[in-house]
């Protein structure tokens, strides 16, 4: 594990260049340019607002600015997660010519997918920060939780990317599996809705390791509440374990990549 990280650090220029290539290509090819980065969160947020409007008609409870702000806050990391995982899963198979022709730490590929998606998120964040006050959000001390929550989100995403990129190299149908699961995962994850809506069944939703992180972000930014520490610790444990396990798994299979791709 420590070797892997040290190797990654030694090859940081490579990681930088591969990420730079991805970003460059993505924005060169799309007519919309940087708008691309905000498009996905906007669509997710709109869908969420839609869901909320319907829900409020049924329950008779009016929608508040905080509801919409909360959806926006959760939409960004969710968009990051989905795009990173989608690109990450195919990052090794998509670069097969590099994998079979040149020697360097392959961990660079899934990691660059994460960094590329992180770049998209970084572009969208200022837009969100600009819009949040209109939804009634204000500065508060609880926002100090945000860096930790984002870090966990990144760790969890990176772990899955590393795991799936290697798995997809050996079993090409993993890619389809990931795509199908990602399409419907938004219904199982409290992005568009709030986990507390489930009442006593909230804990089932919170078993999804992303749920406590998203809930924590919503709470600390919009509702000025501390994250639920028990669930946060649970998420943290899973994220760290997943990242560690992913790297170990990846490193063990790495020597066989070139002949299997």
């Amino acid at each position, binding site marked *: 594990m420590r070797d892997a990280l040290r190797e990654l650090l030694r090859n940081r*220029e*490579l990681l930088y*260049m*591969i990420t*730079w*290539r991805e970003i*460059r*290509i993505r924005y*060169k*090819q799309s007519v919309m340019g940087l708008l691309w980065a905000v498009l996905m969160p906007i669509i997710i947020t709109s869908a969420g607002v839609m869901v909320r409007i319907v829900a409020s008609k049924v329950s008779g409870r009016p929608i508040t600015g905080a509801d919409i702000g909360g959806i926006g806050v959760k939409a960004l990391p969710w968009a990051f997660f989905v795009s990173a995982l989608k690109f990450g899963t195919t990052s090794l198979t998509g*670069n097969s*010519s*590099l994998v*079979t*022709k*040149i*020697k*360097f730490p392959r961990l660079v590929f899934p990691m660059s997918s994460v960094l590329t998606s992180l770049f998209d998120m970084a572009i969208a964040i200022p837009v969100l920060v600009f819009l949040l006050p209109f939804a009634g959000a204000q500065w508060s001390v609880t926002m100090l939780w945000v860096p930790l929550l984002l870090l966990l989100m990144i760790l969890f995403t990176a772990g899955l990317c590393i795991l799936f990129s290697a798995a997809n190299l*050996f*079993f*090409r*149908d*993993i890619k389809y*599996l990931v795509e199908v699961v990602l399409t419907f995962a938004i219904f199982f994850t409290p992005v568009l809705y709030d986990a507390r809506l489930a009442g006593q069944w909230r804990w089932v939703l919170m078993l999804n390791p992303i749920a406590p992180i998203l809930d924590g972000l919503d709470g600390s930014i919009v509702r000025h509440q501390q994250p639920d520490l028990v669930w946060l610790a649970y998420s943290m444990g899973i994220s760290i374990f997943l990242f560690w396990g992913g790297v170990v798994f990846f490193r063990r299979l790495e*020597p066989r990549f*070139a*002949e*299997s791709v």
Partner: protein
Amino acid sequence: MSEHSLRLNHVFKRFRRGERHDSLRDLIPSLVKRAVSRDRERALAAEEFWVLNDISFELKKGETLGIIGHNGAGKSTMLKHLSGIMEPTRGNIEVNGRLSALIEVGAGFHPDLTGRENVFLNGVILGMSRAEVKRKFDEIVEFAGLEEFIDTPVKRYSSGMFARLGFSVAAHLEPDILVIDEVLSVGDFAFQRKGLEKMRAIAKSGATVIFVSHNLQAVAEFCQRGILLEKGRVIADGPTDQVVRRYLDTASIHEDRPARGPVRIAKTAIRGVDGQTGRFAAGQKARVSVTLDAIAATEKVAVVIDVFNTEFYEVFNTSSERLGCPPLSLAAGERATCDFDVELNLGPGTYYLGVYLYRYDVEREYDHVFPATSFVVTTDRDTRGSANLYPAVARFESAAPLALVRAVGN
């Protein structure tokens, strides 16, 4: 620092033939199979084979080594082991110093990025730091001769320009050990020469160079030492000249291939009138012998031979039928031989001979082998190209001053 720069100790590599399980759908059956068969380390299951079989050798600093062998002898696998892309099943490889492998030019190039962007990307991928690329940037671009097009996306490059830029980046790596694949066969003739010159300069600067190529002439020209691989084993190791000769001497036997049709090419050989093989002088007479075995009854077989140069450009093609010889019908188990007499009016270089068995009236291909065998043509005159026009300079002299010629003419 120790004297050797590379050492292979009993390197083995196992490959599996046939279908691979590469989807979850197939995982379960393969897991069951794996559980049933134990002791996978030493023994080879039926569908497995050693693609590298007990390979040991040592390279001194500054040595130039050429690795040759027929297709499927294990050359590419060997390269991938040397460059660290694959790991041996057994044995180990010691590398002493910075090793760069040039297995494919322009790996990692992206068509949408400009030449400049790709130089940086490719340089870092190949192991340079960005500062290093920056320092050598002008030199790289100049070597490729692409100063004008460096800010154009490489998708607008011709394949020659693409290859030149890729090669140029790789040629500026300054490694201690350089492993080169076919990459020298890129670009036009002038650039190939330039590339070979560059390689020579790298070797002269004290780097160890390993060169794998189909181009026997380039190997012979460039390397002091040669290794001949066959079926994953080193069968010859010594001065390149001797090893190349040994390679060319082996009449190609194809009997162990699985049959593709009712008749199979068993053996191909090309011999001079006095029986020599492998190396011929331009213009010499030679005989191409093809032996074929009928596995089942076969009707109307004709034999086609063709000759390719090292760029795999077809320079000659003929067939028994087109030369006026009627096709042969064979009974099961029957063996036939077809001999062609040829004159090797070829330019200097390495040539490959391909053999086809064909039925003309229904246009059916029974079998083909390429390359069935190869040979080298030498000439005492310095010419280039596949054709030989046997040139001699008849006259090249200065006559009278031009003004005088005109004056006299008037």
